């Protein structure tokens, strides 16, 4: 997109590396974007730092990735956070490798409320367990669905019939 962002990205990367050191595993600057690969242990601190100190007030999206069929990957899964700062006009992407043996991820709902449904969808599509989420339930597939559809080992034709309509007491009692 805009290359006037590049000096802002440079400053941001330098500051994050300074502060978090080993937690920032890698930096990717292709296509004029700024992508940081962050270790799972430090992701919540990095997110809180970006939100509070650098005014990244808009969490655009949380995506899950199953890297099983890529030629080169760190861990099987990844969670990708896309952040935008309206005041400074800076975009940043954080990618967190998650091993399939330990799918617990700290939730971002205490920082941004937009993480609520985004994490629910990442949970239902890949199986991440967002620790601390107020209501981690299926969102897009029906309540009798078993499995996580977007994983690479889920068959594309694996349709599952649903015979009943769902009860919504949990969503009803979720805090605002």
């Amino acid at each position, binding site marked *: 997109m805009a290359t006037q962002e590049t000096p802002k990205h440079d400053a941001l990367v330098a500051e994050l590396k300074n502060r978090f050191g080993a937690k920032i595993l890698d930096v990717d600057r292709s296509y004029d974007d700024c992508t940081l690969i962050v270790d799972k242990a430090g992701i919540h601190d990095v997110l809180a730092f970006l939100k509070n100190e650098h005014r990244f007030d808009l969490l655009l999206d949380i995506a899950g990735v199953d890297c099983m069929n890529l030629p080169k990957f760190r861990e099987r899964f990844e969670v990708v956070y896309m952040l935008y700062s309206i005041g400074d006009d800076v975009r940043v992407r954080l990618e967190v490798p998650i091993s399939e043996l330990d799918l617990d991820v700290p939730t971002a709902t205490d920082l941004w409320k937009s993480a609520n449904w985004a994490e629910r969808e990442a949970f239902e599509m890949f199986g991440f367990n967002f620790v601390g989420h107020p209501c981690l339930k299926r969102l897009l597939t029906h309540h009798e669905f078993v499995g996580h559809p977007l994983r690479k080992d889920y068959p594309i*034709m694996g349709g599952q019939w649903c015979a009943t309509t769902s009860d919504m007491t949990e969503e009803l009692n979720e805090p605002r």
Partner: protein
Amino acid sequence: MGVRNSGYLVGIETKNETGLITTRLDEIVRWGRKNSLWPLPFGTACCAIEFMGVVSSKFDISRFGAELVRFSPRQSDMILVAGTINYKLAPVLKKIYDQIAEPKYVISMGACACSGGFYDNYATVQGIDQIIPVDVFIPGCPPRPEAILHAVMKLQERIDKEPVPKRGVHRRHEVVEKFRDS
């Protein structure tokens, strides 16, 4: 409606030379049914926008008597499934279909409702005829409004051919099966 063998006075009409029109009860009932099909638009996706176009004044569906869209299954006699039905919505569709009173007709509009469309994957039912019996299929993605009008006309032709069931027979489709080849 009217006397089928035109020009000749039959039966009770021979008594009255001024031409009292008689007809069978079936034909009056069929005439009433086909010219006042109140649709229940079960619109989910893009086809629902095309259905809204049919209801608007440019392609008028009220010429066929189908103007009053009633979203309640108790007040309508035709369900027009417009859009993709996925496994989450399938029990809802079946429930709504069961709640419509006989005689009921189903029009399946669009490629997704007829056969799953090009969403051949884990989420989409491959055709609503796996769940409910369908009278008219409309292909297209989305079908043109004229195609929907054509389908309503085809449904009217179909209603013309079916016998009105006698009292005690509840399932229209059983009757249709019985008379299928006649």
